[in-house]
């Protein structure tokens, strides 16, 4: 069960939200993945302290929580950049030239996919098929699916995106179970 009704020592109110989710699942160990989804939804990424907190609350060994958090691609242990550019690398997108977009972006920003630019503005991520194969090649730019992309358009989009100041919600994950 969550650590009573007391506020978290750090004074961070976001832990209340997390506690609520844990209570909803009756603190059961098998709800670990659900809880990590919620935690990442609230905090944006899973830092070590957060994993320790979850491990305590669900009465699980930390090794198990860390093991699960690192196993699944969806969980980030490091903060993401202000903006995200998720390039779909599914077969349909690959056949339609997603690789060219990847190369163009990597050359322009000197940043490999899977990393965040040095100024912490944009995280480049590859995805395993977002299921919009009809529109290939597809990218999810700040949680919006954009289809039929070309390398030139992708560069343009990233430039536009960099100039917009990110709002808090953009960093937060879309899925909060």
């Amino acid at each position, binding site marked *: 069960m969550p650590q009573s009704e007391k506020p978290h020592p750090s004074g961070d109110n976001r832990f209340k939200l997390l506690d609520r989710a844990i209570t909803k699942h009756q603190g059961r160990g098998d709800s670990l*993945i659900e809880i990590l*989804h919620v935690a990442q939804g609230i905090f944006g990424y899973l830092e070590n302290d957060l994993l320790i907190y979850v491990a305590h609350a669900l009465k699980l060994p930390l090794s198990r929580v860390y093991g699960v958090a690192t196993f699944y691609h969806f969980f980030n242990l490091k903060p993401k950049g202000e903006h995200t550019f998720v390039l779909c690398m599914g*077969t349909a997108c690959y056949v339609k030239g997603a690789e060219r977009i990847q190369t163009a972006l990597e050359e322009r920003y000197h940043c490999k996919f899977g990393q965040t630019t040095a100024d912490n503005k944009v995280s480049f991520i590859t995805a395993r098929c977002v299921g919009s194969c009809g*529109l290939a090649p597809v990218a999810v730019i700040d949680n919006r699916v954009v289809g039929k992309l070309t390398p030139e358009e992708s560069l343009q989009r990233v430039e536009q995106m960099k100039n917009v100041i990110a709002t808090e919600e953009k960093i937060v994950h879309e899925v909060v179970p």
Partner: protein
Amino acid sequence: MTIEDLQELSEQEQQRQSEKKHRILYCAAAGCISCGGDKVGNVLKAKVKEYNLDKECDVVGSGCMGLCGEGPLVKIQSRGEGLLPPTMYQNVDERVAEQIVTSHILVGKRIETHWCDTSAPFFTEQTKIVLENCGRINSESIEEYVAAGGYLALAKAVTEMQPNDVIEEIRKSGLRGRGGAGYPTGLKWGIVRKAQGEQKYVVCNADEGDPGAFMDRSVLEGDPHRVLEGMAIAGYAVGATQGYVYCRAEYPLAIERLKLAIKQAEKMGLLGNRIFESQFNFRIDIRIGAGAFVCGEETALLQSIEGKRGNPKPRPPYPSEKGLWGMPTVINNVETFANVAPIIRNGSEWFSQFGTEKSKGTKVFALAGNIKNTGLIEVPMGIPLRKIIFDIGGGTTEGTEFKAAQTGGPSGGCIPKEHLELSVDYESLAKVGSIMGSGGLIVMDSTSKMVDVAKFFMQFCMDESCGKCIPCRVGTRHIYGLLDKISNKKATHDDMILLEELCLMVKETSLCGLGQSAPNPVLSTLRFFRHEYEALLNPVETYLGGETAMADFEK
């Protein structure tokens, strides 16, 4: 809720729909939404209101209409004399949406520029069982599902049939698992029914990880109740009281629709305790994946539902005997469950008229890649591949030459043009070294290089290997290395021999389906496109004499 209540509800809804002169359906599946389908829906609703057409027009968001590449799609059905016949519009934007109301509805004039010809083979050559409601009903309304005959099969099973009769009916229909392996569903249910266990579970595998496949997503988004009904029937047949849908996190819209559907069904008493006033109780919960391809493998999926790392377990024991929390578990794919209700409703004989002798029914395919009509199709089993690609799919884009069709994702293989007459069923596909898979069908034209395609899939398998067994963890890495060497023109004939040996080793010795099928793309491209590999080989002398050999070694 009794059967009479259900029938009454169905009649009420049919009555409500028949009172409306026009029914405007806009595609509200993820594909169309991502190119502006939701905006089109909003404009349609606003305009209908603006012109005071509320009483005669129904504007509803429906499931996938199939032709995803031309989205957003809008369909209009009108009843009454002198009105336009059912019409479909493609590439609809906000401006066209406005025209649909002002021109099509008010004046009765078709918008020729965006009109979609529904008499094209893409629409006429299909046989719809799983997708019968997709694009026809409001995907967020349980009433519309009931009006389309929904939950009648569950009512029939629970009130008129014994659990064994249900299993027998499914067995007789010849339904086989649609996840790829094609295990007979009735047989699986029978094993679970007989297995000992105080609690039994029904699990729906909606972790559609194959890149290029979006059939399950479309069914869940367009007709979620159909899957729930199928699961409930399975629960009744095997004696389970709890079901789980394991859906991947990449499908937020499908999760949302499922949640809503479960809530609606519970409210009406179609899920929960004493369903149709019988002794049968059944609940369904959703579990969300977290982006691991291996969790599509059944034992790994069960581990993930238990909140653990998705590591597969050796089989036997099969999940049918020892599954979730060690209890007997039915685990089927979304499409398999979607087939259950129509079989119970219409009988096994009706179902087995479709398909071939060993593969009954239909199969949903996601057509993508270099093909004109990308989208979702449902065809009877045994249809020739040529018909799917050239008649329904319209052939390759921009007149380039067809080279290969890839089925089964990273576990499948590439089928070259020599085999275009191949009948699409489980056995025939296996014969040419591919698999049915979950239904992704990617068309490649002459611009695709087969070595790179094999490398692409191997990189996928390498990244997604869970790391538990060595053949898969290390083997895929080495196969990838060899393919990389070949594509960079540094490999020799010896490397080719090594590649083949390694592929067979990984195939034979891996623990789960991921590793066992990982070499398939390489083996099938080696079989049909060996010349492409050989063209990239380096003669032995230059390789050994060159500097690259040493440089590679030092790496």
